[in-house]
C-alpha cells in the first residue's frame, strides 16, 4: 500500500504541477475584481468569499485533473502493469483515493498560502493594487468561472464513477456489475452535483448582490439592465453547461461501456 501511494504520487507529479498552476491562475482571476471596486472591502467581506472560491476551484481542479490522469491509466497500457501487481483492486483504488486527497491537500496549502500573500498585498502596495486592477474584466468573469467550476464538478463526478466501476471491477467484466454500480453512484452523485451547481449559482449571485447593493455607492455599480441580464445569463450558462455535460456523458457512457 505504501509503495502504491509512493508510485501514484511519483506518476502524478505532472498533475501536481499542472493543477498548481491552474489553481493559481483560476484563483488569481477573481481577485482583481475585488480591488477594482474598492480596495478597502477586501478584508471585510470579499476576501472570505474569494477564499471559498479558491478552495472550490482548488479542489475541483485538483480532483478533476487527478481523475483524468487516472482514467487515462486505466484505459491505456500502463494499466496492464498496475493491474498485474499482486495486490487487490480495492487496495489499488484506495491508493488512488489517498493520492488524490494528498494532492488536493497540497493544492489547498498552496491556495491558502496564495491568499495569505494576497491579503498582505491588499493591505500594502498601492502599485500592486493598480496592477491587479489592470487585469479586471467585467463581473461576468466571476459568473463564468463559477459556471465552469460547477461544470467541472459534474465532469469529475461522472469520471470518478466510471473510474470506480472500472477500477474495482477490472477490465471488461460483465456489464451486469457495472450498471447497478453506476446507478448507485449516480444516485449519490446527482444530489451532490445539483447542490454544487446551485451553490455555484448562489456564489455568483451573492457576489453580484454584494457588489450591487452593499458597495454600490462606493463603486457606482448600481443595478442596471445590463447587470440583471448578466446575472440571468450566468445562471443560464450554468444550466446549459450541466445539460451539455449530461448529453456528452450519455454519449461517452454509451460508447465506452456500451450501456
Amino acid at each position, binding site marked *: 500500500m505504501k*509503495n502504491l501511494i509512493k508510485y501514484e504520487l511519483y506518476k502524478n507529479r505532472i498533475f501536481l504541477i499542472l493543477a498548481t498552476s491552474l489553481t493559481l491562475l483560476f484563483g488569481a482571476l477573481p481577485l482583481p475584481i475585488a480591488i477594482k471596486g474598492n480596495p478597502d472591502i477586501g478584508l471585510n467581506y470579499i476576501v472570505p468569499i474569494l477564499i471559498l472560491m479558491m478552495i472550490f476551484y482548488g479542489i475541483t481542479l485538483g480532483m478533476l485533473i487527478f481523475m483524468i490522469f487516472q482514467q487515462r491509466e486505466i484505459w491505456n*497500457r500502463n494499466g*496492464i502493469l498496475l*493491474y*498485474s*501487481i499482486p*495486490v487487490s483492486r480495492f487496495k489499488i483504488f484506495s491508493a488512488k483515493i489517498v493520492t488524490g486527497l494528498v494532492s488536493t491537500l497540497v493544492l489547498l496549502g498552496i491556495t491558502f498560502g496564495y491568499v495569505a500573500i494576497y491579503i498582505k498585498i491588499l493591505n500594502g502596495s498601492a502599485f500592486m493594487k493598480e496592477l491587479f486592477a489592470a487585469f479586471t474584466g467585467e463581473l461576468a468573469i466571476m459568473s463564468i468561472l463559477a459556471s465552469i467550476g460547477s461544470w467541472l464538478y459534474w465532469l469529475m463526478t461522472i469520471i470518478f464513477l466510471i473510474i470506480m466501476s472500472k477500477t474495482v471491477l477490472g*477490465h471488461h467484466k460483465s456489464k451486469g456489475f457495472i450498471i447497478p454500480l453506476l446507478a448507485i453512484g449516480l444516485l449519490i452523485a446527482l444530489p451532490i452535483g445539483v447542490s454544487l451547481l446551485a451553490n455555484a449559482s448562489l456564489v455568483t449571485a451573492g457576489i453580484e448582490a454584494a457588489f450591487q447593493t452593499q458597495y454600490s455607492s462606493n463603486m457606482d455599480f448600481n443595478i442596471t439592465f445590463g447587470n440583471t441580464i448578466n446575472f440571468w445569463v450566468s445562471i443560464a450558462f450554468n444550466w446549459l453547461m450541466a445539460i451539455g455535460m449530461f448529453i456528452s456523458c450519455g454519449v461517452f457512457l454509451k460508447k465506452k461501456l456500451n450501456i
Partner: protein
Amino acid sequence: MILVEIKNVSKIYQSRMALDDVSMTLESGKVYGILGPNGSGKTTLMKMLADLMQPTTGKILINGETPSVNSRQIVAYMPTSDHLYKGMSLERTGIFFKDFFDDFDMDSYMKLLEEMDLPKKLKVSALSSGMAAKLRVAATMARQAKLIMLDEPLNGIDLMTRDCIIKTIVNNIKEDTTLIISSHLVEQIEPILDEAILLKKGKVGYSGNVEQLREVEGMSVANKYREVFGA
C-alpha cells in the same frame, strides 16, 4: 505437473467472439507457443491468465485456483505494448518491479540489461522500439515466476534484436518455469518450443508436442501452421 487448466473458456467482446470454447492444460517446465494470425485470441487468452480480463463463460485454474491476487504472484505477463512508465530510468523500472513483485530478482535484471546492452541510466522514453522490446523481456524474465507469458516479444524489431531476445529467453528460463510465447514469426520461435497451440478464430486449430509433430507427421510447426491456416 499441471500448472494451468483452461476449461471451456469463451470470451465475447460486445458481439465479437474472441475465444470460443477453448480447453487445454499447460504443464510445468514446458515452453508453449500460442500461434495464430491477428484476432485469433492469443492476447485475450494471455490477459485472462494474467487476471486482466475475465472469461465470459468457462473456468481458468492456475495452480488449482482461479486467477486472483494469489495467481498474480506467480504469473509474469509481458504485453505487446510499451506498458512501462516512460518517465522512469531503466534502473528505476527495476526498483518499481522489485517493490511490487516479491519474486523479482534485481541482480538478474541488471545482468539482463547488461547482456542486452541497455544502459541502466537511460529513460524508458528514450528507448528505440528494439531497446524497448528488450527491456520488456528483461523486466519479465527477471521475475522467478512459475508462469511467464510473452506476448509477441519479436514484433516490429530487426533480426539481430530478435536473435538477442530469443537467446536471452533460452538462457534465462528456469527448468520448472512454464513459458508461453505468442508470435507471428513461427519459424523464429519454433526451435525453442516444446508444445504448439494454434488458435484459429478463437478456437484451438491444433495442439500438440512439437517433437511428436516432427517425428509422427514429419512436419515442422511452420508447415502445420500453413496447413491449419490454409496458406
